[in-house]
């Protein structure tokens, strides 16, 4: 009986709530923020429907390399990265590709690496 209890305790998934939390937060950011970001940066701006100086180099860098810029990159790049990583990990499991333990390291590791890179660029620009 005790052995069974230890066995159950041993298999507690302490990491899963973290991945699921990042996945959930990323999903909200994906749904709420990204459509607006894509509309402004990838549609309206290239079509010339916004004033030319709306995202001039000076304006863009002062917006990005700041605390709000740091939070913006966290919300539109880092959290959606973890959301995508979670979906890819479970998608790979669904089609029986690789092992879940390795996929987990690759997917979340990749998301963490790209997040550090994105936030690192913001911090570097901030300190310049």
């Amino acid at each position, binding site marked *: 009986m005790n052995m069974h*209890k230890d066995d*159950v*305790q041993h*298999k*507690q*998934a*302490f990491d*899963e*709530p973290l991945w*699921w*939390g990042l996945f959930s937060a990323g999903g909200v950011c994906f749904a709420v923020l990204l459509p607006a970001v894509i509309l402004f940066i990838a549609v309206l701006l290239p079509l010339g429907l916004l004033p030319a100086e709306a995202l001039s180099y000076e304006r863009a860098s002062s917006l990005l390399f700041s605390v709000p810029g740091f939070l913006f990159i966290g919300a539109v790049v880092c959290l959606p990265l973890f959301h995508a990583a979670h979906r890819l990990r*479970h998608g790979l*499991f*669904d089609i*029986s590709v690789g092992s879940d333990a390795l996929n987990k390291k690759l997917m979340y590791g990749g998301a963490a690496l790209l997040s550090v890179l994105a936030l690192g660029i913001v911090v570097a620009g901030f300190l310049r």
Partner: protein
Amino acid sequence: MNTDQITAKRVSADSASTNSINTNNTSTKHISVKRYLPDNSAETFWQEYDLPVDDSTSLLDALNHIKEQLDSTLSYRWSCRMAICGSCGVMVNGIPKLGCKTFLRDYEGDIRIEPLAHFPVQRDLVVDMEIFLEHLAAVKPYLIDDNPVKPYDPQAPETYQQSPEQLARYKQFANCINCGLCYSACPQFGLNPEFLGPAALTLAHRYNLDSRDHGKKQRMAELNRHDGVWSCTFVGFCSKVCPKHVDPAAAVNQGKVEAAKHTLIALFKG
């Protein structure tokens, strides 16, 4: 007792009501049944039946008609005929359904009947539900009260008190009839039979939400495993096929929030 005996017993116990197909106003339907007779062959095969149906013919009526009139070798489970025993689950054109709650009038063209998916087949439409029952037992789906039971005092009888609001918290999740349709619908259970699965996780949640229960701590240890709530990817087909509208997908995902809270508390407590 083997499953043939069970089926035979149930059929004989209620044979008076089985031949309920009204011979007036009938049309003929063609149904294909996936057969597996391990005594004869390890291979499955499709068998075709033409039978008279009317507007009130359920799939269970049709199977009973086949068993009684056309082919007595067909095996399947059934008992109550009114969607409460959860015995007559089968795949109808690839979708898990209760035979008694499925009416042939709703189907155009061929109807393909198979045993419930993701369970080992014992014979014809009879599956082995042992793994489901093990998962169910693992989450302790019953009231757990650590307080010692006092001797009954007729002068001052003590009963559990529960308000309508407290009942409303879990009532929907209490309607499960353990038919197993949600397990056949769940692709994650199909990939990993160790996954506790929709019904077991829902019943765990149902008792965790019950104000009379004190067993949440014991259940969370099961729920917070990789094979607990975390194997669910929120496909949601379990809630679509549930014949009692229990919504297991909602229960499992509320279970994820609870498991996350449980983990946070465990981390702070060390």
